[in-house]
């Protein structure tokens, strides 16, 4: 999958699940702030990525994926 395609797919997925517009999802934007995630709903983001891309984000790594850019890279590396 091309990176641009992956980014669009991730953004659409997150937009539908967390009910926010995709224009807040810039590579440098903070995920938790942009998606208004708390400690519970971040679990739903992890499940969403795993279900859609088959990429399991390890618990210790979740807190390091602070921006959308880091998330895109992580998925691209593990897909």
């Amino acid at each position, binding site marked *: 999958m091309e990176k641009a395609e992956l980014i669009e797919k991730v953004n659409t997925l997150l937009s539908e699940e967390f009910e926010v517009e995709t224009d807040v999802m810039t590579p440098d934007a903070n995920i938790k702030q942009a998606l*208004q995630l*708390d400690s*519970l709903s971040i*679990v739903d983001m992890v499940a969403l990525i795993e279900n859609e891309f088959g990429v399991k984000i390890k618990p210790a790594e979740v807190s390091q994926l602070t921006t959308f850019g880091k998330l895109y890279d992580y998925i691209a590396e593990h897909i």
Partner: protein
Amino acid sequence: MKRVVITGMGIYSCLGNGLDAVRQSLYDGKSGIVFDQARKDMGFRSALTSYLEVPDLKKELSRSQRVYMPEQAKYAYVATAEALKNAGIDQDYLNANEVGLLYGNDSSAEPVFRSITTMLEKKDTTLVGSGGIFQSMNSTVTMNLACIFKLRGINLTVSGACASGSHAIGLGTLLIRNGLQEMVVCGGAQEVNPYAVGSFDGISAFSTREDQPTKASRPFDRDRDGLVPGGGAATVIIESYESAVRRGAPIIAEVIGYGFSSNGDHISVPNVDGPSRSLQMAIKDAGIDIREIGYINAHATSTPVGDRNEAKAIYNVFRDYNVEVTSTKSQTGHEMWMAGASEVIYSTLMMKNGFIAPNINFENPDEDSAKLNIPSKRVSKKFDTFLSNSFGFGGTNSTLIIKNL
């Protein structure tokens, strides 16, 4: 002891969304029962159920509020929002006062089923999602409503089988009478999905009159062959009379009697003694003569033994006072955890509008129901006091007596 009054009601049921629609359905003797092919495909003996849509609350609630709500919590939210509005209570009032919450709920099977299915298939608990735990717990309705409406008084789920909703109102009444709460949001909620009632179907409790869904629930009728499961949610706002007057609230009725008992007997087969004692306790608690009661809303679910024993219990207590007795379950099916609260609302709507809804499908009495006055057609009647019975598995019984104000 403080007097306890009802100042708001709200309902989401197979008879309609909201008080106006439900009142009209009661008046028209409409049935809310349908045939559900999905249940047949799952191997149900009976695919009959009440029908209602799960409300879409995207406009009303955020994603983070909705994700913890199973269907019955959504029904309860809609019913509670209507009840609070009708009671003239806004968020400022809820923020400034310690309003309690006692709601009947006794299962949350679908989220449990989905969580376990995910765990078995994926072997990864993260994939269950964050909503699983909060949707699966028996207290899911009260935990969701308390957080959404920011309620700060007692916060407790009442699990008393098919008497849950009735006990919730009764227990709330006791708290207010004793001055421990000024206002309590009471009610009952019931999920409507196959997973919740598969075993109930398996023990042959349901009517198999699948070719005539609207004729299947026929409480007290000689040819009844079982109940039809239903659901939704009903909310009743109760508060002290002083609080209602102080707020200038619309006072609808007064809860004057609460009775309860346990059969101490069989897990599913009701007896006569337990319900009789519940009835008598409620009447004593209300301090009224039975002839002041103008209508009895029976528990009668359309099972052969349950209806027979309730008819005996009512006759034992009321004897030659031949007051009208009906079961609104003839229209709604058995709303189970919700029923005790919804039937208070159904009966109050009738009391405020001068009619008794027909016990539809009551065509021929049996030996015991023949001793009661069970109208199969709508009755125009002004009455100021009614009694509502609710009984449940394990032999739990609850009786409420409500007076018009």
